[in-house]
């Protein structure tokens, strides 16, 4: 796998750059913290309740749908590469696959998973 080595080198340098900039933020600039400055930005009013509370379940539904559909989409890619060699057999496989993809899509659509108020 020698062709991966340059990509890893870029990764390492990018990591060094990111960390260096983050460390530089401690050195550069004035440090004059006040109570108001460190408080969460709330458009000027006192904070009423703490953040990091529960959030709408719709986001969780979207996350689960993503996992299902993205794994399926990722599985299409090897099939796509080999489509020229597989010919009609590949098309049939893709049709079966698309059927499996579309049925849950229609189901969650009818269940209202894509309706945001």
């Amino acid at each position: 796998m020698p062709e991966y080595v340059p990509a890893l080198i870029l990764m390492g340098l990018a990591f060094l750059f990111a960390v260096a900039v983050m460390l530089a933020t401690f050195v550069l600039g004035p440090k004059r913290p006040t109570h108001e400055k460190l408080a969460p930005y709330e458009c000027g009013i006192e904070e009423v309740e703490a953040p990091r509370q529960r959030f709408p379940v719709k986001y969780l539904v979207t996350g689960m749908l993503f996992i299902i559909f993205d794994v399926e989409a990722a599985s299409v890619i090897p099939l796509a590469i080999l489509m020229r060699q597989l010919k009609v057999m590949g098309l049939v496989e893709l049709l079966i696959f698309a059927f499996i993809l579309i049925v849950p899509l229609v189901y969650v659509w009818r269940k209202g998973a894509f309706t945001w108020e």
Partner: protein
Amino acid sequence: MSDLAWFLVAAVVKSIIAIVALLTAFAYMTLIERRVIARFQRRVGPNRAGPFGVFQPLADAIKMAFKEHILPAKASSFVFLMAPAISVFVALTAFAVVPLGGPTPWGTSAIARAWAPYIADLNVGILYILSISSLAVYGIVLAGWSSGNHYSLLGALRSAAQMVSYEVSIGLALAGVLMFAGTLSMVGIVEAQVHQGIWFILAQPLGFFLYAIAAIAEVNRAPFDLPEAEQELVAGYLTEFSGLRWSLFQMAEYINMITASSVLATLFFGGWTLGALNGVLGAPFIWYFIKVAFFLFVFIWLRATLPRIRYDQLMRFGWQVLLPLSVVNALVTAAVVAFGLSWWVSGLFGLAVLVIAVGVYYLRARRRTAGQMELARLDFGTPNATVSVGVALPSSVRLVSLPAANGAVDSAAEKGEPVVVG
């Protein structure tokens, strides 16, 4: 030195060049964007620092570095500090497989190949870009979560949901190109276009538009910049960040834009290839640069032209329009490739779908406008000049005015006038 040593030296030097070039490109993209948007809005834009404002990015960078870097009291500090670093790390890393030229511009020896104008030619190239750039969501979610601020958290959640929704379509939209190319390597895809004598935009117009739209949503650019919707969420996940930490997020956004433009140029527009002029030193690179610059300009153009769309429209568009269309595109392309048909079959099909989609959108927009104009007429009597020009009332106005409209419906029915309730 041995070949291996040269290989490593080349990799390190090319990586440093890539990082420096991307950072410079980011700095000048901010200037170009401000200048271009200013022109769109009949302003001049920043032009004071140096001729045409060329030193503006430098001035901005220095200013940003010497701003106070605030660490909010409620933030979980380690995650808060890691989040911008993750964003920029991911953005820089994804660029590794983008080819700026062919594998042999300097000759075919092993040393010359080590200096080819890309960092790595992985056989899973496009998959590498997709997987690395989907890590970008971590930077944003962690930034929002660690800030200890309601606006940041909401912005981050929105952004995460948006990015994952459009990512599904990205993979499927590219499947069509991959079927034609038969390889995942970026260099291989360009060579396949040379081999087949076409740019894949001709065979995959639908795939191109699906990928372009999904890519804009993926990099959180207007009109899909919901995470930064300032009238609702202040600055979204960026709210608590200041100075260089804030700049790192901007850096990541612009570098992601550059990578997305490079993918568009490489997969759909033939990358660096220039036919007979391929041998001229520098010419393929300039040709490639022009293509990428064009797509970057389109990014700015869209931001200047389109208003931000609503969150429910965004989610519905991603799942109910983009995803089914990309499945259809993949199926039709598969049929074309499997039966060995010519490329123009899928090209014509893609164009037909695009025409139908635009037509449906146009008719629906007209019907909605007509219904709202009718409601406005019922509310205010005869349409006045502003309404008859065709300005559609936003839905919030329509909801507020419904009781009045019902009253007007009754009186209109008494007079025997046609009644339309939108």
